[in-house]
């Protein structure tokens, strides 16, 4: 029942959370990444995400499969396009028999996604445009 995809439309947080609820799982951990206004002194106005979609979904499936193989359920959804402040960019959810595994695997998924999945942010800040991931 896992859901792994890149979308252009707004992420349905309630619906995705609901999809993780099954009788065999007692612990569901979710991570929701949203567009933040301030990073220290820098004020962000919006973020545009782009992706190499085929490869990104492939990389996301590789990660999801690790967790699915442990008998848990997984949701990984990333949105691309132009996102306003407060909008949801990414939703990660893990449903497991117990909370410890849910916490641990949810954190592994978001941490690894940020390192390996080909998605890029172009940050429109008040002072200038910044490309995520690049050293200045």
């Amino acid at each position, binding site marked *: 029942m896992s859901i792994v995809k890149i979308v252009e439309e707004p992420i349905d947080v309630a619906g995705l959370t609901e999809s993780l609820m099954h009788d065999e799982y007692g612990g569901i951990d979710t991570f929701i990444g949203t567009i933040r206004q301030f990073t220290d002194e820098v004020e962000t106005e919006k973020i545009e995400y782009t992706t190499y979609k085929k490869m990104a979904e492939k990389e996301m499936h590789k990660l999801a499969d690790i967790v699915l193989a442990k008998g848990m359920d997984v949701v990984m959804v990333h949105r691309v396009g132009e996102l306003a402040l407060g909008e949801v960019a990414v939703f990660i959810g893990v449903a497991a028999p117990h909370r410890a595994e849910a916490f641990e695997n949810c954190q592994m998924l978001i941490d690894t996604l940020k390192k390996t999945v080909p*998605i890029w942010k172009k940050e429109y800040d008040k002072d200038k445009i910044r490309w995520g*991931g690049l050293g200045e």
Partner: protein
Amino acid sequence: MKVKLFSVLAEKIGPTIDLNLPDQFVAQDVLDQIKELHPDYANVLDQSLVAVNEEYTNDESIKLESVDEIAIIPPVSGG
């Protein structure tokens, strides 16, 4: 061979770049060719990886005949 570009490279150079790749090459050769054509983006290219057929490559030798798709992956920043 058309090489796909993304993020800042796509915006500054274009969505693809045409390269003449030999029958056998490594990822660094691809990055070096683009650097020669666009020295302004050497800094980004030095931080980029090369994906062949939607898989990351390292230092392995790549046969041109096995390549369906090749892409430059600048540092990712999803989430």
